Each structure stands twice: as structure tokens, then as C-alpha cells.
């Protein structure tokens, strides 16, 4: 076992055996002790601790409105990834129309909590009534969408669900504009209310979402360890064998769709209540991509992985990458950490970092000797870097673009060349990266944000193909 690289599938071993083998492979030294100590703690106590931390942050430390908003976005994405995990991670059904259930929940809440239906007074049902109703509706819709899964497998199922997702957006955009609002959406919704309580503050929504996340996790954990959970995994691994073992395959698949849909719709209702408005564009494919990114980055099949992935994607994307300064920290920080982790021994790290610094000063001096305007610019954020080290011309756009393209080429080349050359090539690559960042990327935060998202997705998947907390893949021959 120890000989095989970590991410190759364990051939001929089933999931439970693989899991227990993995458990025996503790990390060396004190990290192994920590791991062992953590394992002594059960699942439930850990959930309680995580919840306590979640409550502690906004209530005791306090967050400003932006931080709370990012927290709300992150919790929403975590709940959605958790729900998606039921169909994709557990039952192994690629559901590309998942975001439509989220939209269904939001629109359902919107219609039941606004003046849209039954004018002039509209319908204003309390949340404890409307949310369960919407969730039941979503579960039924999930069953209907899941029906083709009786006949379709794999990518054929994916495309049918994708049609469903697209059709939802087209539907809300075009059908019955007087009721669904068309592209104008529905606004002026009631906040969450019922039984003399009304939630209007962002912190309130943060706590509601946290509560729902914890409840969903608890329910799903019980499901996961129940008959149903085992049936789902059996169907994912081998439907034929599962049905031979008397698992009702079709019913089990439909249940996965229904549970996923219910959780998504629940997230949708809270989203609608918090935004007090819903619009078709919020439930389009770009958001679906984020949910998938969260789930798979965290590790499909693992509940805590899904939650972690959802939180991470949202916090990185909205919390850090929106501000140029923090995306700088992420950019340089990730590079440094990667160097330290990937380069062994430490003398090589020192060589590369030192070499890059020297290389920079030399290049800067050479360029400055030829033309002073070529180093006259500043990117503002890090004047100490571009004053003497990175090259930032007075008109940095073209130069920055060239640097960026050169960076992409160098990175691709870096993967191809063998060991020693790679270390040498790292030095100019790092320097070009810094120049591209200072001259161009830090000036266009919106574009850079998505560029970095793309890079993070590629790097994380190459680093851990089964996700951050995903279980090792098992291949039964």
C-alpha cells in the first residue's frame, strides 16, 4: 500500500477496506498523534464544535456587513454543495440542472411572500409554512427530473438535466411575465417571518443559514449511515451488483434527486428572503459551475468536503479576490507556499527564492540602464516591489500583457522539462509572474479574479484529483 502513489486507484479493494487501510496510514510524528486524537472524537461532538465556532464568529467577534454578506454567500454555497453531494457524490448521478432547484426554491418563496399572486393583497404566508411547502414541491420536481435516470446513464442523464436547468431560466425569463416578472424578476419580498419573529439583519440570516446547514448535515449524516446511504453508494459503485443484492436501484436514484432538490430549494428560499428579490440571471449556469467547483474541490462523496469546498470557493472568490490587495497576498502567498511544499530539499527553495530576487535586481538594473521610462511606472499597491525590482513601464498595459502570455508559456514549459532544468526555469518564471502581476493583473481586479479562479481550479485538481477531503478512489476489477 505504501508503495503506490496516493491518488492512483486501489485496484481490487473495496471502499470500506480502502478506508480502513487509509486510517492505518497515519502521518509521521506529532501530526499522526493529532490525527489519532481527532479520531477519538466522534462525528457528533465535532459537528457541535464546528457549529460553536460558526456561531462564535459573528456573535462574539463580530463581522461588518460585507463580511457577514460573504458569510451568507459562503453558507449558501456550502448548503448547495452539500445537497449536490447527495446525487453526484453519493449516488453518482451527474445532475447538471441542480441550480434550477435552487431557483425553484427562490421563486417559490417569492411567489408565496409577495404581492405577485392573488392581487392586490398578494400572498404573505409565514416562513414556517411556505418553506416546507416549497421544499416538498421541490422534492416532487426532483422526482420528476430524476425519472429519466431510470433509463439514462452517465452523460446522457447529464444532458437531460442540463436542459432542465436551461429551461428553468428560459421559463422564468419569458413565461407569464405578469406573474413571474420576466427579466424584471420579483422584488419587495417579505423577509423571513412567522410567529411574531421577523429576521431582517444580515447576522440573523447568517445564523439561520448556519442552523440549516448544521441540521442538513445531521440529517444527511443519519441518512448516510442508514440503509439508504449504503444503497446509494452501492448504486454508485455498481448498479448491476446492487440490484442483484435486492437494492431497488431506480427508487434509490429518485430519492437522491429528491433529497438534493429539497436541500437546494431550502437554500433558495433563504436566499430569496435575504435578497428580498429574485431574478432569473441569478440561477443560470455560471452559478451552477460554482456549486460544482465547491463540491469537487472539497471532495465529492464526502459531506465535510462538500461543505469545506463550498465555503472555500465562496470566501476566496468574494472575500479575498474582490480586493486587489488581498488577491496580491493570495497570488504571492500561494506561490511561496507551493514552492515550500513542492520543492525538496529546502536548499532548492532557498536557491530559487534567492535566485529570483537577485535575477530581479539584475534585470531591473539592466533595463533601467537602457531606458528610464521602462521602469518608471508603479502599480501603487507594492511600491517597494516595483521601485527597484519588478519592471513596470510608464505605460504598463502592453508590457504586462506580454509578460502574462510569457508566463503562461513558461508555466506550460515548466511542466514539460525535466528536474534540473525545471529549477533553473523557475527563476525567470517567478520573475515574469511578478512583473505581469505588478504591471497588469493588479490593475484589473475583476478579470484577475476569474483568472485566478481558473488557475486555482486547475492547480487544486492536479494536486488532489479526488478533492481536498475526498476519499481515495477505488476500482473493483
Amino acid at each position, binding site marked *: 500500500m505504501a508503495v503506490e502513489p496516493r491518488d492512483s486507484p486501489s485496484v481490487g479493494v473495496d471502499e470500506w477496506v480502502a478506508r480502513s487501510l487509509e486510517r492505518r496510514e497515519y502521518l509521521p510524528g506529532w501530526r499522526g498523534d493529532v490525527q489519532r486524537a481527532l479520531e477519538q472524537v466522534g462525528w457528533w461532538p465535532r459537528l457541535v464544535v464546528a457549529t460553536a*465556532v460558526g456561531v462564535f464568529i459573528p456573535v462574539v467577534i463580530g463581522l461588518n456587513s*460585507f*463580511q457577514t454578506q460573504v458569510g451568507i454567500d459562503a453558507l449558501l454555497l456550502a448548503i448547495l454543495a452539500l445537497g449536490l453531494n447527495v446525487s453526484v457524490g453519493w449516488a453518482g448521478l451527474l445532475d447538471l440542472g441542480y441550480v434550477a432547484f435552487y431557483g425553484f426554491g427562490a421563486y417559490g418563496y417569492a411567489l408565496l411572500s409577495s404581492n405577485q399572486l392573488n392581487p392586490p393583497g398578494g400572498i404573505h404566508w409565514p416562513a414556517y409554512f411556505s418553506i416546507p411547502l416549497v421544499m416538498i414541491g421541490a422534492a416532487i420536481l426532483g422526482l420528476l427530473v430524476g425519472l429519466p435516470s431510470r433509463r439514462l446513464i452517465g452523460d446522457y442523464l447529464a444532458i437531460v438535466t442540463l436542459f432542465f436547468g436551461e429551461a428553468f431560466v428560459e421559463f422564468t425569463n419569458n413565461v407569464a411575465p405578469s406573474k413571474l416578472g420576466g427579466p424584471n424578476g420579483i422584488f419587495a419580498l417579505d423577509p423571513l417571518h412567522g410567529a411574531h419573529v421577523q429576521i431582517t439583519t444580515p447576522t440573523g440570516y447568517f445564523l439561520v443559514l448556519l442552523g440549516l446547514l448544521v441540521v442538513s448535515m445531521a440529517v444527511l449524516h443519519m441518512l448516510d449511515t442508514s440503509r439508504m446511504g449504503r444503497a446509494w453508494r452501492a448504486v454508485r459503485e455498481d448498479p448491476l451488483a446492487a440490484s442483484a443484492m435486492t437494492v431497488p436501484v431506480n427508487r434509490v436514484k429518485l430519492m437522491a434527486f429528491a433529497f438534493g432538490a429539497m436541500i437546494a430549494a431550502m437554500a433558495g428560499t433563504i436566499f430569496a428572503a435575504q435578497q428580498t428579490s429574485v*431574478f432569473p440571471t441569478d440561477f443560470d449556469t455560471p452559478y451552477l459551475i460554482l456549486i460544482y467547483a465547491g463540491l469537487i474541490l472539497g471532495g465529492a462523496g464526502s459531506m465535510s468536503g462538500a461543505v469545506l469546498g463550498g465555503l472555500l470557493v465562496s470566501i476566496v472568490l468574494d*472575500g479575498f479576490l474582490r480586493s*486587489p490587495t488581498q488577491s496580491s497576498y493570495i497570488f504571492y502567498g500561494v506561490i511561496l507556499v507551493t514552492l515550500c511544499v513542492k520543492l525538496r530539499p529546502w536548499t532548492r527553495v532557498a536557491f530559487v527564492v534567492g535566485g529570483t530576487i537577485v535575477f530581479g535586481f539584475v534585470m531591473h538594473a539592466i533595463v533601467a540602464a537602457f531606458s528610464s521610462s521602462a521602469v518608471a511606472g508603479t*502599480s501603487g499597491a507594492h511600491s517597494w516591489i516595483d521601485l527597484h525590482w519588478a519592471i513596470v513601464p510608464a505605460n504598463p498595459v502592453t508590457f504586462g500583457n506580454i509578460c502574462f502570455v510569457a508566463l503562461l508559456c513558461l508555466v506550460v514549459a515548466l511542466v514539460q522539462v525535466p528536474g534540473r532544468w525545471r529549477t533553473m526555469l523557475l527563476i525567470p518564471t517567478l520573475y515574469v509572474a511578478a512583473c505581469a502581476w505588478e504591471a497588469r493583473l493588479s490593475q484589473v481586479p475583476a478579470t484577475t479574479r476569474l483568472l485566478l479562479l481558473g488557475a486555482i481550479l486547475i492547480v487544486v485538481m492536479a494536486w488532489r484529483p479526488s478533492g*481536498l477531503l475526498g476519499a481515495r478512489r477505488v476500482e473493483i476489477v
Partner: protein
Amino acid sequence: MKLGISLAAITVTALVAAGCGSSSSSKSSATSASSTQAAGGGSGSKSCTASIGIEAPLTGQVAVLGQEQLAFAKLAIQDDNKANGTNITLVQGDTQLMPAQATTVTQQFISNSKIVGVVGPAGSQEVEAVGPLFGRAGLVFISGSATNPTLTSSGKNPTFFRTVSRDDVQGPEDANFVVKHLHPKNLMIVDDQEVYSTGLVSAMMPIFQKAGIKVDHESVSQKVTDFSSLVAKVSSDTTVVVLPWQVAANGQQFGKNLAEQHKNATIVGTDGMFSPSAFTTPGSYVSSFGPDITAIPADASIVQAAKTAYPKFGTFGPPVYAATHVLDEAIASACKSGTATRSSVLSAVKQTSEPTSILGQPIHFDTRGDLIAAKWFLFKINPQGKYTLVTNS
């Protein structure tokens, strides 16, 4: 799985870091706009420092519109810093024209205490989503492209202003021009399934119907780039096609498709199509609520600078320049009588009274935030693809 929950807890802790940083980030993110502008001919001895946020679709399907707005906002800040001796910086927020993202960006701006005014958001549905948040924070926001009438008439957005005319001003003017001067018997109107477009269509339809014109109402997604199947539907006695669209390049392609299929219908575009560089189909009409700024002598220097910053600009930039300019002036005047705070800037914006502007018309707002006496201009595109003024009011 086992290690997972504890890791999840750590992630939640990262939330704190996300936020703790953001308060400090306001300081440095702002500097990214430009730090070389402090040296202006200042009137006061102490420098007037503040930030303006911009919410626009800087990436995504309609980045073409947001990037133009960003270029003009930068330009306005550069010009006004020089003129007023202020040190105003721009903080960028990308919304991708999605209300949910606009909400997050709005909260980011609200928690950044340096920001005293916001330009944008671009879309009416975004304004609808974020208006109450800005209202509660007492933060003024001026959109250069949100045209839905209810934004100001509903009274839910007390700090909202706009430097464009409303759908119910522009729509009827355009429709009346079509009825009175082009006399179509049959007409096709195509919406692009976006708020701007559907709003204008519903403002125009009653006028066409009252005039007894047979209207074929079609609709096509903004993301589509081929209109040949729609053009094949234009019957031979349809003489006018009304396109209330925001992406001028799509209008240009519609014109190409008409020419390709030898159809003689005339395109009438609304102000979203006004783009002397992108929409140049000869014989078409385009309306606008401002004159062609490339033809205003007073705007020559701005136009020159805009052409370098954003070569193919159209209708979305100038109103944002005007909006940013209004904020700049408000900040400068607030500085004169103390410091620029959110409330002082808000009240200064309310009292805005500019006799001229980049839009070729005076700027002052009514109590609800609409531009007073928004004018209406109509251009015809000549065979060389140049815009010529036909009529105005």
C-alpha cells in the same frame, strides 16, 4: 470525513480573516486607481481624499458595456482630480449584471468607510436588489444605465439618482417618431430578453397599437449572434424593425442579415444602440437622450481621451462620466465646507446644478432622483455610416 469537520471549522475562521482584511484593504485597494493625481492645482491647503465605488459588469456576457463604463469613470476622476485638486480614487466592483453579485459588492462598498458615493449599478434589476441597502447606509449611488421607471417612482430607493432618461420618456418619443414619420403598416419589434429591452417594448407597444400598426413582437436572447432566422421572418411589407437593444454590435449584425437577405426594412434603435463606432448600418435611425458627444466642440478633449482609453465607445460611457463627475463635484464641494462624508456628499448631489455637461445638457435632479428635462435626440445613419441629427426635443 473525520478530519473534515474540524477543517470546516477552520474555514469558517477564514471568514474573519476575509473581513478583517477588507477594512484594511479599502486603504490600499483604492490606491490602485491612481496615485499620481495628488499634485493638482488645489484650492484648499488640506487635500480632499475620498473614494468612489463603481459597480458594473466588468466580466461576463456584457463586459463590453461594463468595461466602457469603467473607462469613462476613470477618465472623469482623472479630469476632476486635476481640475479640483482633489484626491479621489476609484474602487472597482464587478457584478456580471447579476443582482446577487451586486448585493455582495454593495455590502463591500458599504463597509468600506472611505467610499462616499457609488457609480452604478448598470442594470435596473441590480438597482432593484441593492437600492434598499444603499438607502439604509445613506450612501448615494448614481446609475448611468438603469432606465426602469419604477426605480424612482416607487420611492424605495431614496439615495438613487440617474443620469439617463427613463423608459417611459424615451419609449413613447421613439414610438411616436416611428408612427408619425416612417408610417409603417407592419412593424417588427424584437426584445433581447433583458430588463432594458422589455421595459421599452412595453412603453412602445400601446402607441403602435393605437396607431393601428400591425406589430410582430419577437424576442431573442442577448447572447445570440446570428439573426438570420429572425430576419427571414421579416415580411416584404414590413418596413420598420424596432430594436431596443443594449449591445450595438448585435444591431449591426441584424443590419447585415437584413442586407444579406435583401430586405428593405429600416432599423430603429433606442439609445442602447447609439454607438457611432459599432452600429453603422446605413439608413437606420438611432435615438439618444444626449447629442452625439463626438460632435460637441466642448467635449473634444474628453472624446480624444476616451478614444485612447476605449476606442469603440458607444452610449454607456458618457452617462457614467456624467455620474462620476456629479459625485466628484459633490465631494469637492463637501470638502470645501468640512469633510466629505456620506451624508454631506448625498446632500451635495441632491443640490447638483450643472449648466452644461458631457451629455450636452444641464444636469440637475428632481426630488426622486431623475434627471430634469432629459432631452431626446434622433439620428439617422447616412450612407457613409455617420450619424446625422434628424430631430430633437
